[in-house]
Structures are given as structure tokens and as C-alpha cells.
């Protein structure tokens, strides 16, 4: 946590922080659903499916880091590790499981 004086000199704007978190959250849920569809169609089972999800999420995080944060993650996030890389993975995990189950059942018939 920056000192109080540093905070007064370069303040943290609550609105921007919320906006950044929202962008990350949106991207995660969208890509999670897509990954669910993909792994359902591929017919992946338990551990393989989750591994696929984690890999895919990691790949998406790399893309976010490269294109949206332009490599300077410290400027956009206060704790980049927990916000950019691991942000909202569990929420996205729910959407992933939902679409995965749906398409697994549909395709496998």
C-alpha cells in the first residue's frame, strides 16, 4: 500500500479502478463460456476439461496483458497478479461449467 503522502500526490481514482475490473470481468465471462462450448464439443472429461479452461484463461490473460495493458500492468492495476492474471477466474469458471455441461450433453448425445 502506498503511503498516505504518495496517495495524496498521485491519487487512485475509484472510477477507473472499477472500470478496469469490469473490463476484465466481462472478458473473462465471455471467454469462459466460449471455452465451455469448445470443451463440450471436444468431449473433454473431468481433469482434461478443467486444464483446458485454465490454459485458455491463461492465454486470454496474456492477450489482455499484451494488448490492453500494453505490458505496463503496474499502471492499470494496484495488484496486477491478483487482478489481471487471477481476476474473476472462479466467476468465469461457473459459466465455463454451465456451457461445458450443456454442449457435452448435446454433442455426445
Amino acid at each position, binding site marked *: 500500500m502506498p503511503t498516505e503522502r504518495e496517495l495524496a500526490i498521485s491519487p487512485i481514482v475509484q472510477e477507473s479502478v472499477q472500470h478496469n475490473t469490469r473490463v476484465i470481468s466481462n472478458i473473462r465471462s465471455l471467454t469462459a463460456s466460449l471455452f465451455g462450448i469448445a470443451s463440450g464439443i471436444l468431449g473433454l472429461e473431468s481433469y482434461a476439461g478443467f486444464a483446458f479452461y485454465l490454459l485458455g484463461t491463461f492465454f486470454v490473460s496474456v492477450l489482455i496483458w499484451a494488448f490492453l495493458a500494453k505490458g505496463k500492468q503496474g499502471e492499470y492495476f494496484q495488484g496486477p497478479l491478483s487482478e489481471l492474471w487471477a481476476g474473476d477466474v472462479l466467476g468465469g469458471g461457473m*459459466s465455463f461449467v454451465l456451457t461445458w455441461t450443456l454442449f457435452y450433453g448435446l454433442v455426445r*448425445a
Partner: protein
Amino acid sequence: MVQTIHRDPALFYWILFPISIVMILTGVLRHYATILLQTTPKKLTLPALREQRQLLHGINLRTNYSAISSASFAARKNYLVSAYKNGDFLKDPDNRGKPAGNPMTDPAAMEGMMGMMKGNMAMMIPQTLIMGWINAFFAGFVIMKLPFPLTLRFKSMLQSGVATRDLDVRWVSSLSWYFLNLFGLQSVFIFILGNDNAASQMAQQMQQMNPSGAGGMFQPGQDPDKMFKSEAENLEVVEHEYILKGVEERVLGLV
């Protein structure tokens, strides 16, 4: 041994999709119903408004004191501290010293609590209704296979109605599809309804944790006089630091 059960593909179209669609629609409905049921925030009288805002003023002074010089800060601090101690801004100067109002009798607090209760009702009623509907229509059979395994404890919950001993836990009934939807659709709701929608369960839980709501700063049961006094003490303790000190070096370092 891999257990397979052959199922009619028509099962999906008649069960999975209807359940999902119903849940999405009830979510949307609940969101709009909450908006319509919201009462307009009660208008404050002038003394009440003054009380609230002057407290905010003091808090602002305490947080952002670095923007003004120490002389200005000292002047404001003295004024506010003496005003707080004298109770100049209280809306009921005669009520000083009396115990805080009982939340049951104070009308403003009642409105806040009613709002919370309405929100809770709006959450729980559709959930119970849908669960009842599913149990009525879609019970007694397994509908699909989960792609991942679960422990045996879940068997009773997810396979309700199908009383077999060695059916794999991965075969589940439609109730589990309901649970999956409950959690997975929250992100869908965020997409279609904007960010703070009433259909999202997590938002509801967070709302329950800070129930300040439309009642403003003074939550039921808090004494404004005490709040003023504590704010006055906080102001006394502040050590003033001027942000303009050393700003020219910082600017030169910026380039």
C-alpha cells in the same frame, strides 16, 4: 466401467433449454420488478440535510486537508470543531443526550429495512417457485451426464428421485441443471442487464453486507451528536501536510 444410458435427444429440447430460458426470463423479470418496486428516496428537511452535509464537510476536511495551506486548514478546523462541540448543526438540538432512537419506531429506519426485505423477497420467491416447478414436472429421471466426477455425497442431492445404488454420480437429474444455471447465468445477467442488476445473486449478498442504502449517512440507531464529537476528535488529531511542499521539484522531475 463406463456407464452409458441411451437417451432420447428430444429430452434436451424439452427440458434443458426450457429450464434455462425460464431462469433467464425470471432473472430479467426480477430485475425490472426490483426497479419498479423501489421507493423514491425520502426527501430530507433543511436541518436534516444540513446535519448530514456538514458531517460530510468535516470528513472531507479530514481526508483532503493536504490541498490547502496549514493556515486555512487551522481556521476551518477550529470553526468545525467548535461547531461540532456546540451541536450547531444538529437538527434536533433538544434531543442531545437522549439515547438513540429505537429502529422499530424511527420511520426513516423502517423504510430502509423494508427496502432490504423487499429485495430479499424478490430473490427468494422466484427461486422457491422454480424449484417447486422443477420438482413437480421434471422429477424422477436423470437427464444428463456431468463431464466431471463428484463425490458420493452429492449423489443424494443431484440424483433426487432416482433411487439406485450404483448409478454413477455423473448422471444427474434436472434439479442439478437448475443449480448449474443458477451460478452460471450470473455473468449472462451482467451482460444483458448492465452491471448492477438485481438478478445477480452475488450483488444481493454484497448488498446485505452493507445495508446503508438510501437512508443516508445516519444509520438507524446512531446518534448524530456522538458522530459529530468523534469527528471533532479526529480533526484535532490530524497532522497537516501541504501537498504544495516540494511540488516544483516533483514537476521538474516529471519532464
